[in-house]
């Protein structure tokens, strides 16, 4: 019992509709069938009113219009049933009931177009043309095979022909609204499916009805009536679905696709161009008279719509290209700005390093060195100390002081190598190579071919790149040989650092960053700050090669510098 209660109300509505349909087919008596149709219509109206009250939709007017259309059809069935069952009279065609049936169409159309209007993007001529193409295609088929035959039927009266043709014609308005709703992808897909299926079965039933009436073969109790009954149930179910409250909101609000050259759109346009000729072929096959001028007019209408759509798409493409060009320019500008900031940041960092190195030199190092001289004087007189422990203490203090002074000097060198400022990059790299070999016992060759000294920030950045690269090689590469080459090619300088170590997967670079190892990324940023290009080539077991190509900004010297470090 509990599981029955958990079944949503909209499912129950479908179940009841199915039961009514089975009853309609199982009991082929006019009284039963007319009663079932009236009950289905009445239940649909109640279900829609309950749904509106229960779910409080954003746009209750839409659902009231749809409910009014179902109510109009229901009243039509009541009149029909009253005539057939109570008055025991055959219902003529057309009758008062048809007025209510036909009145349902504009009410349905108003409700569905209100949904479509909310879903469609503003000023969307392209989307409207898409809807027009599909609707025209269906309209042509409907005209050729339903509307025109009904209008030209010789077996029924003029008013009957008009009313018979009106059903499929009015259905086209509902169809057009449904196409718009489907194209725009509502956030309530289930509700759209239920409404859409309802329109579909109603359209099929109307088409069969129009054909049957034009041939004077329609009678109550056929499968056609089950279609209308099903439509009642589907719309009642749609109103009971919880998502009915926002059926008019599109999923595509932030992703407009109405002006995108998508494959389905292209297929649609191609199919539309072939509708009229295909209809002619089928007419000929069915032995129906083919009116060439009609086919020409139909084709022209569709082709005009298709070419108009292509024009709108072309315009949209042009607008997109202009937007992309503008964004590209903005991006390039941002990139230039970023590089400028990076360069200034690097220069600031180097200035700070120099400042700190200077402060260390002028402050603690000088003072400690001064203390060293005082200790030295004490040490010179230490021979006069009677206690050897005192002499040892003085020596110990002197040695410890010396160690601290050397540590500070090493720190100063790391912050700002004197050779970089005084002698240039080649000399500083030579010292770096020497230190690396001494500390890691790995042979390291250095080749420098520069026509001129580089700009100080470029020298600092290249130095730091090599410094970082050598630190990484010392820590991780397990290399047997390292090569550093700095070569000038015209107005570009190429720095290459390669080793024959363990290498790594290039894709691992993002993993390194994720794990907090920013060395490679920082090197790339520094090189790009100079307006240069950076590349890393590596593979497991195949060593690593770092290459930086930077434009030359000169130091205003014209000395040709050649420096080749000896490989140990």
């Amino acid at each position: 019992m509990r599981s029955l209660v958990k079944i949503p109300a909209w499912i129950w509505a479908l179940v009841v509709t199915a039961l009514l349909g089975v009853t309609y087919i199982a009991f082929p008596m006019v009284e039963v069938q007319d009663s079932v149709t009236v009950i289905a219509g009445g239940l649909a109206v109640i279900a829609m009113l309950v749904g509106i009250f229960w779910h409080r939709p954003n746009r209750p007017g839409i659902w009231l219009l749809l409910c009014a259309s179902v109510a109009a059809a229901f009243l039509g069935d009541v009149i029909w049933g009253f005539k057939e069952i109570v008055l025991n009279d055959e219902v003529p065609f057309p009758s008062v009931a048809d007025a209510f049936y036909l009145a349902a169409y504009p009410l349905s159309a108003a409700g569905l177009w209100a949904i479509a209007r909310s879903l469609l993007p503003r000023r969307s001529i392209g989307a409207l043309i898409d809807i027009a193409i599909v609707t025209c295609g269906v309209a042509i088929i409907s005209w050729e095979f339903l509307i025109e035959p009904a209008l030209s039927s010789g077996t029924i009266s003029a008013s009957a022909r008009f009313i018979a043709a009106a059903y499929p014609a009015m259905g086209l308005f509902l169809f057009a609204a449904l196409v718009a709703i489907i194209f725009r992808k509502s956030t309530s897909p289930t509700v759209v499916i239920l409404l859409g299926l309802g329109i579909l079965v109603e359209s099929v039933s109307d088409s069969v009805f129009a054909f049957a009436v034009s041939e004077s073969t329609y009678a109550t109790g056929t499968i056609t009536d089950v279609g209308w009954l099903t439509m009642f149930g589907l719309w009642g179910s749609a109103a009971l679905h919880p998502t009915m409250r926002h059926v008019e909101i599109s999923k595509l609000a932030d992703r407009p696709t109405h002006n995108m050259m998508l494959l389905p759109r292209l297929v649609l346009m191609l199919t539309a161009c072939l509708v009229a000729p295909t209809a002619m072929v089928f007419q000929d096959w069915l032995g129906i008279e083919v009116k060439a001028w009609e086919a020409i007019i139909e084709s022209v209408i569709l082709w005009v719509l298709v070419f108009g759509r292509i024009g709108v798409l072309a315009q949209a493409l042009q607008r997109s290209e202009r937007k992309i060009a503008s964004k590209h320019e903005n991006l390039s500008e941002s990139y230039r700005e970023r590089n400028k900031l990076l360069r200034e940041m690097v220069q600031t960092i180097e200035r700070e390093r120099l400042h700190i190195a200077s402060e260390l030199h002028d402050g603690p190092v000088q003072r400690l060195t001064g203390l060293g001289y005082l200790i030295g004087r004490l040490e010179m007189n230490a021979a006069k100390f009677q206690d050897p422990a005192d002499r040892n203490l003085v020596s110990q203090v002197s040695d410890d002081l010396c160690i601290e002074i050397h540590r500070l000097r090493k720190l100063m060198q790391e912050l700002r190598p004197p050779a970089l400022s005084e002698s240039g990059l080649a000399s500083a790299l030579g010292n770096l190579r020497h230190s690396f070999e001494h500390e890691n016992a790995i042979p390291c060759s250095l080749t420098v071919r520069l026509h001129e000294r580089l700009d100080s920030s470029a020298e600092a950045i290249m130095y730091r790149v090599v410094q970082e690269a050598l630190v990484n090689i010392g820590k991780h590469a397990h290399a047997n040989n390292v090569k550093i080459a700095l070569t000038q090619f015209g107005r570009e300088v190429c720095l290459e650092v390669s080793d024959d170590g363990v290498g790594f997967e290039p894709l691992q670079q993002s993993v390194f960053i994720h794990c907090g190892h920013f060395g490679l990324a920082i090197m790339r940023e520094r090189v790009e700050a100079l307006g240069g290009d950076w590349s890393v080539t590596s593979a497991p077991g195949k060593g690593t090669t770092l290459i930086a190509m930077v434009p030359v900004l000169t130091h205003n010297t014209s000395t040709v510098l050649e420096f080749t470090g000896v490989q140990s």
Partner: protein
Amino acid sequence: MTLADQLELLIVDDVPSIVENISMLLSLHPQIRAIRSASDGIHAIEAVERNQPDVIVMDIRMPRLDGITAAREIRKRFPEVAIVIHSAYEDAALMDQIDDIGVERFFLKGSPVRDLIAHVLGAHKEHMHLQG
């Protein structure tokens, strides 16, 4: 110890306090007879021309003429003078230049003064040995 065993030194550095401190400390050693000073490479060469010292303790980074260039010039003109380079930094380029000139000893600033004395006495001894 005779006068002949005692050394005359020339301390070359552009920082007066370093010259003063080193001179004061070295003067306490019994083997040091006289200490003169110069504030840059040009003064150093002039001082050597006037009073040929036994050992020069030479700084590197000085105005007007740096220590390496002065040492090279002194080595060429006064080969009998021993040279000890006294520098705050030790780098490969500097060591190559020092080897090139044939400087006897290299002493890092901030090291214990006993080491400076050992370098000064050692440089003189080695140089005398080489001179034959």
